[in-house]
């Protein structure tokens, strides 16, 4: 096959944008089949282009980086920003996730949204999201990345608040947007610092400059850690890490395909992608790396512990997503960027699958999301059951499913990392793995096994139905990927050769990482893998006893440890804490100071003053407009007299002044 011309890269983002324009402007009048055909067509084409890109980049002798011709965007004296798209191996992985999983979720949405109002609006937003997400991963400089970054935030806001007539959905959208603003603030400041210290926002220029000055770290250049920490703030907002994770659970108010696409597979991984993309910067600052690892580990265990006691099926998955994103951060923080991206890839498969399958369950139960009112769905929705099982086993880390390889890689790299906290990080990761296994199997047992607890009123029992083929097809594909997706990264000790990591080597290759890998023994790696499988099996066993063998055990334990359970089920009161200590003072400040003094005093006051002045002058002049011709004539005569006086006496007057 011919190599793909670089200018075709532009089509990857622009085609979904065309779909957005068509559906966004004409969609209201088009029939549903046309709307979905447009949306699918404009997401299938980029996916095909990405496949072509794979062929191009994997062909023999292909360079590791493909770049479009740069077009100037901003040029201020010697500071320039270009419109340039770049593809390297990291971007290629991200593009595959975005266009591939995105396309599958588009297919699923056709079935899932079939009976919803605002069908065209949904697909227009979804295509808009694909546009911005492609821009984000294809960008070759920080500013273009930021455009995509903000754009996906916008699409996320629109889709969380898709059911905008519901107050909770509209509020959740606003919450997501505002919390992300805090992160974006950090990102912006980081970009300003980059401009000040590097005079450029281009990835290659900034990273080359850092690479050429290895002495900066030793000389104690403070701007590198500062830039990194600000970038972490941005990443924490977008990727829902402590302390900015609070928006993601609420984001589940959006339709389920949105949760799968934006809030599990793609957008929330943008922070991880950004950290991996800036690995040169982060490697130069051990402090920043430690912060990333700590935030990641803390978020992982924190969110997992909340996820164990949630009852809403989508909330469990939401906390699970936060927890898994924490894993990816942990990987990046210990310098194992390839492992983080590997987990990002497998997570995109199995978490999208889990969300879509959960959506299928919700669809089957006509909108019921509470797991206490599910149960026994195994026989009623068999395909959903089997596909979801693949996802559950994958995320729980049971070999040979996808999640096992990526999670194990992260744990192993955490254990062997030079970070002084490495044992603690590994322990936290291991504990999280156990919790993950527990809450996923809890979900699995509660939903698909045991007695049916479906509400009996109405014909609820009879209407339980398997979803249509258009929803099941993506499930099946994703289930297959969740099983085999991890096989691209089988480590050497298990007989593979970690193709995935080799593939990303051109991007992440660092001598230090190579050294670590070669010095540790294979025995240790095997032992660690065995421990993590044991922990996962333990999680399975506990869930099995609690929710299948002896239902009610969990409730009894919760009764006995009431305070602990209360802490978990109230999510550590973080939302309440933020409300009391941040939101309320902020509101009081805005209401008291900004509204009373600034809004009413300065803004309204200056407006009123201007109005009053004009009115006063108008009153003065209006009193002279009598309509009496003779008074006008008088003014005319006076005016003429004044002009003549100035002409005659003016020059001598000026001279004296």
């Amino acid at each position, binding site marked *: 096959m011919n190599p793909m011309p670089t200018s075709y890269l532009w089509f990857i983002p622009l085609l979904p944008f065309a779909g957005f324009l068509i559906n966004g402007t004409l969609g209201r009048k088009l029939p549903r089949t046309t709307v979905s055909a447009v949306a699918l067509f404009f997401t299938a084409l980029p996916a095909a282009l990405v496949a072509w890109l794979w062929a191009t980049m994997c062909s023999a002798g292909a360079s590791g980086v493909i770049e479009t011709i740069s077009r100037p965007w901003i040029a201020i004296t010697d500071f320039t920003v270009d419109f340039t798209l770049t593809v390297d191996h990291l971007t290629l992985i991200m593009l595959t996730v975005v266009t591939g999983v995105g396309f599958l979720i588009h297919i699923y949405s056709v079935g899932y949204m079939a009976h919803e109002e605002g069908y065209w609006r949904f697909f227009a937003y979804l295509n808009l999201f694909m546009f911005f997400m492609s821009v984000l991963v294809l960008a070759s400089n920080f500013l273009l990345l930021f455009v995509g970054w903000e754009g996906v935030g916008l699409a996320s806001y629109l889709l969380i608040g898709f059911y905008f007539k519901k107050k909770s959905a509209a509020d959740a959208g606003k919450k997501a947007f505002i919390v992300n603003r805090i992160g974006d603030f950090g990102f912006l400041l980081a970009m300003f610092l980059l401009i000040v210290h590097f005079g450029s926002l281009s990835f290659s220029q900034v990273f080359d400059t850092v690479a050429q000055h290895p002495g900066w770290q030793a000389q104690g250049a403070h701007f590198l850690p500062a830039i990194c920490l600000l970038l972490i703030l941005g990443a924490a907002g977008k990727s829902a890490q402590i302390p900015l994770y609070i928006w993601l659970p609420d984001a589940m108010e959006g339709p389920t395909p949105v949760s799968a696409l934006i809030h599990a597979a793609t957008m929330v991984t943008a922070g991880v992608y950004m950290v991996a993309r800036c690995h040169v910067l982060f490697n130069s600052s051990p402090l920043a790396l430690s912060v990333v690892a700590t935030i990641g580990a803390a978020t992982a265990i924190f969110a997992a512990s909340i996820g164990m006691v949630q009852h809403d099926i989508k909330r469990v998955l939401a906390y699970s997503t936060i927890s898994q994103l924490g894993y990816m951060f942990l990987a990046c923080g210990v310098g194992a960027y390839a492992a983080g991206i590997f987990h990002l890839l497998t997570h995109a498969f199995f978490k999208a699958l889990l969300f879509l399958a959960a959506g299928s369950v919700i669809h089957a139960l006509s909108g019921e999301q509470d797991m206490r009112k599910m149960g026994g769905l195994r026989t009623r929705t068999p395909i959903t059951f089997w596909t979801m099982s693949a996802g559950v086993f994958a995320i729980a880390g049971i070999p040979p499913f996808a999640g096992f390889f990526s999670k194990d890689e992260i744990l192993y790299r955490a254990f062997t990392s030079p970070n002084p906290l490495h044992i603690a990080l590994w322990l936290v990761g291991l504990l999280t793995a156990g919790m993950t296994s527990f809450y996923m199997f809890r979900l699995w047992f509660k939903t698909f096994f045991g007695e049916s607890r479906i509400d009996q009123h109405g014909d609820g029992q009879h209407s339980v139905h398997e979803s249509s083929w258009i929803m099941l097809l993506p499930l099946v594909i994703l289930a297959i990927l969740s099983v085999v997706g991890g096989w691209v990264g089988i480590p050497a000790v298990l007989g593979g050769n970690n193709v995935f990591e080799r593939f990303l080597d051109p991007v992440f290759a660092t001598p230090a990482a190579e050294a670590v890998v070669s010095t540790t023994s294979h025995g240790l790696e095997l032992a660690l893998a065995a421990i993590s499988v044991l922990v996962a099996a333990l999680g399975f066993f506990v869930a099995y006893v609690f929710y299948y063998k002896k239902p009610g055990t969990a409730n009894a334990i919760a009764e006995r440890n009431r305070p602990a359970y209360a802490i978990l089920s109230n999510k550590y009161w973080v939302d309440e804490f933020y409300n009391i200590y941040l939101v309320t003072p902020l509101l009081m400040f805005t209401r008291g100071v900004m509204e009373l003094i600034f809004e009413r005093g300065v803004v309204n006051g200056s407006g009123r003053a201007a109005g009053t002045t004009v009115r006063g002058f108008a009153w003065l002049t209006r009193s002279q407009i*009598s309509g*009496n011709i003779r008074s006008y004539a008088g003014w005319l005569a006076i005016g003429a007299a004044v002009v003549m006086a100035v002409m005659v006496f003016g020059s001598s007057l000026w001279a004296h002044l």
Partner: protein
Amino acid sequence: MVPTAYYLILAAMLFSIGIAAFLIKRNVITIFISIELMLNAVNLTFVAFAHMWHQVAGQIFVFFVMVVAAAEAAVGLAIIISIFRSRQTLNVDEIDLMKL
């Protein structure tokens, strides 16, 4: 030969009378006549200066003013007639429709 200053003083007097009449009188036609008076006062200064400087331009300008004044008189009188027809008065104090 009469000195130029005499012509100018006469012109100033005529102009002042014109202004005074313009401001004092209420009848539109009288006001109109006072405008003509002012115009002719200006014409007189033109002619006087033209004579003084031996320049023909000032005299030609006077013809020009006369032509315009004639046209103005035609239009002005037409307006006055139509005002009178609609309002039955020529008192300017009662013609105050342009008031805000």
